[in-house]
């Protein structure tokens, strides 16, 4: 962190010098002016600056050198032909200011050379060059000073904090300090910057952006579109999710495990993959729309297609939520109702449905917020239909209006927050779920025979549809030109792997770096939240959970705003991607850790401490082994989510650090569906492999979970 700080300080100072020099050269005399007098004047005002005035461009014009500093003049004459000097001269002749990367020896010390053009009266041609030598010791001593000051300030703060609150428990103190620094720097600060930007116009407070956003029909249309799509997706997903959940939890048919596995597949599948397969099947050159039905005017792009893709990718969320709720309802309640001579239908309507109602609402809200935040699917499939997430992306990348982009993303946050508070206020209060100690055996089938057949057919057809979507992607890998020429080829694979290799490697590298960091931060955070009491705990928890509610587009915009300039210049580096992965996946890891830790009897840790272990030893020998399942699943989750991220990182990638999902998007945009299919398939297999590996590892430690709560 300090090297970043230091680097940016250097940059700021050099920036200052450059600007100063630019101003100075503006005042420099033209072709026939009195250079000597100007140099005298400059030396009086800026004694630390050594100047050399070159009249004319070397290699183009006749040149004349002036300087009050003989050493500088000598250096110029000696090294004019050096590569670094040539670059400087060339830059100046193209009207740019250039800082020589390496310091040169000048007199007794090291100096940095800055080349700056002297412009003609019109300001469009270089008439000469001013070379300035800046004493580097000035730079470094200033740097060292600020560096030392900030270090001292940090340690004083840390020490004071540690002594005041944690004289008994220093590791906890440091953990709190580190986590606070992380979330303040990478959650609070960027978001604050983004929000601030929407209220600033030309350097002062202004509501212009918000006025524009809230009156412009285009933006309001996008808001309406998002809500429309969200409502459609949420409703369809909840219905399908409920049918699936009912099938799995309330009927005694076989194949439940298979159905569950198939239905959860879309949750972990990479972005663009389902969209891709929908386009392959129903797009303009789709296999079904054009190939089989020969439709000409049909378009999958828009609300309908988006609703379809989102429903398929998001109904598993509703399914898993509702299956949990249905499983938790003691089925003896239903048996009791049947026993009291209610019919199955009456039992369903009067017992099962009311008890599931809070679950249904929270499933709906969950899907709704997910649909709003979804970026990848609309990016490919929205057509002329507008949604907020894509709109804010276009504002930023297409129009370069960061303020508007940030404001649109914030607008996206509002329905999400509303949904969250509705959930808190209403669902939590109305939750009837009675969790009994042990699930009781099912005595009677709640669904009648025709109902069961309907459920079975529905579930099987939906599952088959999902399978065929994945099949389509795999098929897409081997087809020459989808929609036109269906001949078999392996050329796609070769080309895709060649062109996608770099992106694949950089994505895996960065995700691999982010994974353990996110895992450790999440687990330490969980320990702090569950086991420790300290001032500011609620704030820390809230900040760690914030990225969960904030749409990825907003995080992406906030990061380019916050880390694009000193003191934190991170845009374009791999680090910003790693940080983005860690921060975005922190909430889920934290929740997992907290849930696991809450099940662990605190007296286990107290016993370890009592037997002589200090806090660090307790964490290492007791807590970590016990939360290992949560730790591992949080890490594999982070890895997979990082590999498949789109919304935030699309703003942050650079040529050096590209991302595999964006590569898929680019291939699809350029109608290279074959290449996109190959990368999507590869990504699906990576994801499945990681989850498979996780299951194997977690299963090994499963005996733990059973004994953790033993009384």
């Amino acid at each position: 962190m300090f090297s970043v700080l230091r680097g940016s300080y250097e940059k700021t100072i050099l920036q200052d010098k450059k600007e100063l020099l630019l101003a100075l050269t503006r005042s420099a005399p033209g072709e026939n002016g009195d250079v000597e007098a100007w140099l005298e004047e400059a030396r009086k005002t800026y004694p630390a600056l050594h100047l050399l005035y070159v009249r004319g461009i070397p290699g183009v014009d006749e040149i004349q050198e002036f300087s009050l500093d003989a050493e500088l003049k000598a250096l110029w004459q000696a090294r004019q032909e050096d590569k670094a000097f040539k670059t400087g001269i060339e830059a100046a002749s193209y009207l740019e200011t250039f800082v020589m990367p390496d310091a040169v020896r000048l007199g007794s010390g090291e100096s940095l050379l800055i080349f700056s053009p002297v412009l003609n009266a019109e300001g469009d041609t270089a008439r000469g060059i001013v070379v300035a030598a800046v004493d580097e010791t000035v730079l470094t001593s200033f740097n060292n000073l600020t560096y030392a000051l900030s270090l001292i300030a940090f340690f004083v703060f840390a020490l004071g904090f540690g002594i005041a609150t944690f004289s008994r428990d220093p590791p906890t103190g440091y953990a709190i300090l580190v986590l606070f620094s992380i979330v303040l720097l990478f959650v609070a600060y960027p978001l604050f910057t983004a929000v601030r930007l929407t209220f600033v116009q030309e350097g002062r407070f202004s509501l212009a952006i918000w006025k524009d956003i809230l009156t412009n029909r285009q933006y309001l249309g996008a808001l309406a579109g998002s809500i429309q799509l969200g409502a459609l997706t949420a409703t369809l997903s909840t219905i399908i999710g409920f049918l699936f959940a009912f099938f799995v939890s309330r009927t005694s048919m076989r194949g439940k495990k298979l159905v569950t596995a198939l239905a959860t597949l879309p949750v972990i599948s990479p972005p663009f993959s389902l969209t891709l397969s929908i386009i392959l099947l129903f797009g303009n050159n789709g296999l079904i729309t054009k190939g089989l039905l020969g439709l000409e005017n049909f378009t999958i792009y828009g609300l309908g297609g988006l609703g379809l893709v989102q429903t398929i990718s998001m109904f598993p969320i509703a399914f898993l939520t509702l299956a949990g709720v249905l499983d938790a309802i003691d089925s003896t309640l239903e048996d009791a109702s049947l026993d009291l001579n209610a019919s199955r239908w009456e039992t369903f309507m009067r017992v099962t449905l009311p008890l599931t109602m809070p679950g249904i609402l929270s499933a709906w809200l969950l899907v709704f917020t997910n649909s709003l935040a979804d970026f990848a699917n609309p990016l490919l499939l929205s057509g002329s239909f507008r949604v907020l997430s894509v709109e804010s992306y276009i504002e930023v990348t297409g129009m370069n209006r960061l303020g508007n982009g940030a404001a649109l993303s914030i607008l996206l946050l509002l329905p999400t927050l509303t949904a969250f508070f509705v959930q808190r206020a209403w669902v939590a209060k109305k939750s009837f779920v009675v969790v009994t100690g042990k699930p009781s055996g099912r005595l009677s089938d709640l669904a009648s025979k025709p109902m069961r057949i309907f459920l079975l057919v529905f579930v099987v057809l939906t599952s088959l549809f999902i399978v065929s979507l994945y099949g389509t992607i795999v098929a897409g890998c081997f087809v020459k030109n989808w929609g036109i020429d269906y001949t078999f080829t392996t050329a796609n694979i070769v080309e895709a792997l060649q062109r996608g290799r770099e992106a694949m490697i950089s994505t895996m590298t960065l995700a691999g770096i982010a994974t353990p960091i996110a895992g450790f931060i999440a687990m330490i955070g969980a320990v702090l939240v569950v086991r420790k009491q300290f001032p500011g705990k609620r704030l820390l928890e809230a900040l760690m959970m914030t990225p969960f509610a904030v749409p990825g587009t907003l995080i992406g915009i906030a990061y380019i705003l916050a880390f694009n300039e000193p003191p934190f210049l991170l845009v374009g580096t791999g680090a910003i991607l790693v940080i983005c992965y860690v921060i975005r996946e922190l909430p889920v890891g934290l929740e997992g850790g907290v849930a696991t830790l809450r099940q662990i009897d605190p007296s286990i840790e107290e016993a370890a401490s009592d037997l002589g272990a200090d806090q660090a030893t307790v964490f290492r020998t007791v807590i970590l082994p016990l939360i290992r399942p949560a730790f591992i699943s949080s890490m594999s989750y982070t890895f997979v989510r990082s590999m498949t991220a789109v919304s935030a990182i699309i703003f942050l990638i650079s040529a050096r650090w590209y991302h595999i999902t964006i590569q898929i998007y680019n291939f699809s945009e350029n109608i290279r569906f074959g290449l996109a299919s190959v990368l999507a398939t590869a990504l699906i297999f990576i994801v499945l492999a990681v989850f498979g590996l996780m299951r194997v590892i977690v299963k090994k430690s499963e005996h733990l979970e059973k004994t953790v709560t033993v009384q």
Partner: protein
Amino acid sequence: MDQISVPVNLEQVSKIFRDPKTKSDVHAVREAQLEIGGGELVTLLGPSGCGKTTMLRMIGGFELPTRGRIRIGGEDVTFLPPNARATATVFQSYGLFPHLDVFDNVAYGLRVRKIAAPQIETRVMEALDLVGLKALARRAPGRLSGGQQQRVALARSLVVRPQVLLLDEPLSNLDALLREQMRVEIRRIQKTLGITAVYVTHDRVEAMSLSDRVVVMKEGVIQQVGPPSTIYERPDSQFVAGFVGKVAFFPVEVANTTAAGPVACTLDGKPVMAGSVAPGVGKKAMLMARPESLRLGNPGEGACDGTVSTNVYLGSSVESFVATEYGEILVQIDDPSMSRVRAEGSRISISFDETRVRLLPVAG
């Protein structure tokens, strides 16, 4: 396993918690003053929420006292963390490490102390032998019965040779039969090792049967400290009398409060005698009588009249519930023969065994 017996002293210890919901302070322990002798087993007894567990956790170092000092063997340990104290705790839920087997659980404290492996082996097996679990050294804790888990927890605490053993309701999760068995076991081990022990319980029978002294607590305040027999027979307050056993109270007027021996008083004008007097008794007092110090007689013969409402046959005794003007009073009839037990519904009178009834201050 030799142990050094060290005393534990609590000096004016108070603990105030802040209730996050109501934003008010809760006095968990108020100015507790207690000296526990070396090798003594002291029980902290009281209803739930009386502060007994908080007191134990302060001795163990899991909570810091708001005020006061705690000394172990004369050394001030008030602010030492648990890992720096010579105490070992047996937790109510045992707190066994589920990821370690029995041997490794017991060895944990020794490994943290960086003791050599061969020595760990001997000491762990010795400790397991003491609690009779040598054969199960390689079992996972999840595959042990409640009683066995309890023994592992005990062995794990003893193996580090603590100066003070702290037991936080260690038997509350066991069934009745096992509880009795473990009670005897704990007492045996504690006496064998001569270790100072503090035992928290809300079960009066447990407290009576295994402690050298009992500390009765209520709402964070120590009510009375004494050997079990004193606490039972000569309690100082209505609360202690009621908490440690079945008891009946009769409001009496005291004729002479200064007398040392049996004191004469009147129960609604009828003269009665009380064998002993608690400190702080004034003109109006409560006469406490245990079920075994009451006798049944014919109406008009005793201190008060009543009607037998229910007889409960317990084998070695019969408990007669008698409805009187002072409420329902329990009379225990030992060695019951049909002649001494009165039929349900019959009018009778109750008289006191004067040597065993005691005068207490009126609560309030």
